[in-house]
């Protein structure tokens, strides 16, 4: 090659479509040897699809790929390994019932038997070289998220990958774990590996990468040197126009106590405490953020509040009016039907939108009536009112859909979320619980969601916002409750804390719980 800069990867004119959706259009990308390249783009901009064509999961419709200067065709993950490409997927690809070592050697060539001793030895060596610790015999289902990620990285290194692709590796990590991961990545870079890291968090891009490549709506926008850019420029390239990244936090007068959770304890399927003695209140006119590493009890807390999770101890009290007098009603032990019939108005946007909040194969009308069809007397369903509501929601929330009778599965992530949130808000709740409401959404949709939540707050609703992005939580919440291993490690005000402090609270329950009253 006459080129003086050596490239580990060169992708040229890559296009990939799924049905009518163009995921990548004529994309070019170059990864230099021994650099860390950040691949930046909004959700849905085609980053993962592009990388999956390097790892052999997808096959491009057209375009060429050169690895270490040679044109190649990657038809399967095996081809990718042989070319020295290893990808760490966002959703870990690990077999739950296997040990770490078994996962690491999975699919490799070699003798008929597996020499477990040699494998364990080699895994340890690699770990020492880059600074991880791992027990090769530990089963995956006993591992924490960060451990699983370590296994994924080891798996790729064990195969001798020279090019590593990490898809949103920090999404599930605490700030401290992120720092550790970045240290490992820098070690690898020193060792001559070439790395692509997919992310949409700008400050991470700036701290880890050498160069940044930007995708927008499936198109390649350009590549810039990290040292010569800033957040504003990157945002403009990513979104296509100047946007303010500030999330609004309107001042609203605090209302009544709408929800009071007292000594709440819940057990999971294995009879282990998923929630342990949780106490807090939520007030009208505030957004209460909930932070914590994945699996710290967020899901159980949301479902318990919604009356969907069995409660082992404690109470969940909702404010409701009886003959004009407010009382706090305990919903523990009452079926969901009864709770609604009593006039307790609570709305819940679950984390699993299409698997819990909506019925994927049904159209918008049938989905909009999901929580209200019972109110109609008689044995038949009434589709007139839900149809009118659907049409109203399409107009008000700018939902993009071919029509009310299109299955919601066919809508994009942002529109799915608008249908779900729109339905929940439509019934005028007093308490609104939203779990990871902007996960997977593009920036426009995300800001629309923030706007809707703030509107509810202004209406005097107690909004409970379970989130994973600490930057967002710090900007939008009035208070932040931090969960750690099912316990409340503290409730803090954003103005009085830092990301690092919350990160620490996420991994360890403070000796004396810090309590901030609203």
């Amino acid at each position, binding site marked *: 090659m006459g080129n003086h800069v050596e490239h580990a990867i060169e992708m040229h004119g890559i296009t990939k479509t799924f049905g009518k959706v163009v995921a990548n259009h004529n994309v070019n990308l170059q990864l230099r040897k021994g650099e860390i390249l950040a691949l930046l783009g909004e959700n849905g901009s085609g980053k993962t699809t592009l990388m999956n064509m390097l790892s052999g999961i997808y096959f491009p419709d057209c375009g060429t790929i050169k690895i270490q200067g040679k044109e190649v065709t990657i038809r399967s993950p095996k081809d990718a390994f042989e070319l020295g490409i290893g990808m760490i997927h966002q959703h870990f690809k690990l077999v739950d019932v*296997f040990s770490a070592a078994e996962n690491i050697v999975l699919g490799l060539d070699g003798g008929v038997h597996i020499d477990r001793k040699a494998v364990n030895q080699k895994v340890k060596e690699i770990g020492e070289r880059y600074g991880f610790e791992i027990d090769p015999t530990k089963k995956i289902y006993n591992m924490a998220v960060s451990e699983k990620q370590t296994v994924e990285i080891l798996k790729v290194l064990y195969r001798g990958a020279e090019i590593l692709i990490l898809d949103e590796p920090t999404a599930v990590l605490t700030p401290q774990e992120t720092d550790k991961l970045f240290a490992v990545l820098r070690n690898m870079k020193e060792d001559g590996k070439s790395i692509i890291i997919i992310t949409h968090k700008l400050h991470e891009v700036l701290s880890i990468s050498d160069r940044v490549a930007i995708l927008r709506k499936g198109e390649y926008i350009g590549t810039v040197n990290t040292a010569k850019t800033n957040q504003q420029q990157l945002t403009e390239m990513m979104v296509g126009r100047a946007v303010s990244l500030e999330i609004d936090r309107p001042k609203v007068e605090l209302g009544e106590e709408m929800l009071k959770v007292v000594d709440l304890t819940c057990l999971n399927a294995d009879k282990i405490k998923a929630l342990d003695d949780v106490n807090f209140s939520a007030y009208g006119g505030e957004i209460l953020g909930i932070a914590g590493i994945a699996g710290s009890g967020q899901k159980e807390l949301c479902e318990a509040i919604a009356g969907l999770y069995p409660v082992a101890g404690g109470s969940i009290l909702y404010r409701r009016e009886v003959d004009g007098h407010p009382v706090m009603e305990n919903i523990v032990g009452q079926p969901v039907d009864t709770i609604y019939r009593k006039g307790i108005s609570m709305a819940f946007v679950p984390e699993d939108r299409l698997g819990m909040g909506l019925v994927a194969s049904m159209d918008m009308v049938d989905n909009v009536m999901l929580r209200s069809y019972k109110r109609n007397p008689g044995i038949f369903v009434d589709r007139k009112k839900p149809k009118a509501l659907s049409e109203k929601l399409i107009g008000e929330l700018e939902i993009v859909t071919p029509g009310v009778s299109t299955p919601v599965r066919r809508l994009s992530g942002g529109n799915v979320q608008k249908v779900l949130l729109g339905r929940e808000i439509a019934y005028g709740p007093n308490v609104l619980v939203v779990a990871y409401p902007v996960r997977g959404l593009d920036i426009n949709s995300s800001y629309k969601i923030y706007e809707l939540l703030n509107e509810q707050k202004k209406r005097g609703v107690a909004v409970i916002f379970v989130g994973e992005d600490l930057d967002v939580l710090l900007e939008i919440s009035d208070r932040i409750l931090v969960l750690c291993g099912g316990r409340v490690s503290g409730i803090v005000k954003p103005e009085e804390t830092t990301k690092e402090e919350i990160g620490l609270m996420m991994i360890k329950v403070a000796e004396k719980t810090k309590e901030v009253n609203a």
Partner: protein
Amino acid sequence: MNLLINILTAAVLAGTPLLLGTLGEILTEKSGNMNLGVEGMMFMGAIAGLAGAYYYEQGVVGSGGTPSGIMAAVVALVSSFLVGAFGALIYAFLTITLRANQNVTGLTLTIFGTGFGNFFGEYIGIRAGGYVAVGDNIKTAFGRLNIPVLSDIPILGKLLFNYNWVVYFSILIAVIMAYFFRKTRVGLNLRAVGEDPATADAAGINVTKYRYLATVIGGGICGIGGMYMSMVTTSGVWVHNCVSGYGWLAVALVIFASWHPARALIAALVFGGLTILRLYLKIPGVPMQIYDMLPYLATIVVLIFTSINQSKENVMPKGCGLNYFREER
């Protein structure tokens, strides 16, 4: 004592076709295919085994020779394996390549296989002038082995060294399969395909190839189980509906054995025992047909027990029942 030995040996004999069916289905399910067509594949193997032995005999006799029992056994074994595997291949093509629903395809295979067995059983019978039956030479080949010295040991000889060759053959398959899953690289890869095909795929394992091979070989083993029914249980005579329910019992036994080939040995023995118990233990007042319910009732009890007592391991492979398409999104 004698009664107990009699029951045990009879249980082994009755349990062997179950064991083969179960082993075939374990291999299939470990790859992530829930093939409910075991009954059908056993029917196909049953007629193929019998037809193979029968036509071999006719051929040899027709050319004036004496049919060899060993050759007939080999022909029956190979043809039952191939035809059982052919049934599984239809299933594999439909579910793996064409992504048809596994439950429905398996049931269809059962309908097809049952018809296939009975159809050809009767058809060959009509052409043979009444019914299909093999000669004594071949019957002996599927009779109990007389191993010098070993078979004569008191009690142990009767208990361990007094069966037909298929019994030992199926135990051998169980042992090989246990070793294969536990120790070998390919076995580990296959288990990964059944547990989590997307992960296996990302690890560079050819999911399609593994699923095809496991399903087809598994079907072949089920076919041998069917051959046992027609060659040993009914002594080389075609009996209408001869497999009747054994294939389904084998599907249930997979759960009983919690997907372990070694445990399948015990499970098959227990269920074999249950199916013949009525011949040996007559309790006054309990009609025969109530005994017939025992294996099925036992299966239900096991099903309920395993569902109450949930654990992460020793359960159905997680990917079982679901077809895999890499570009699904």
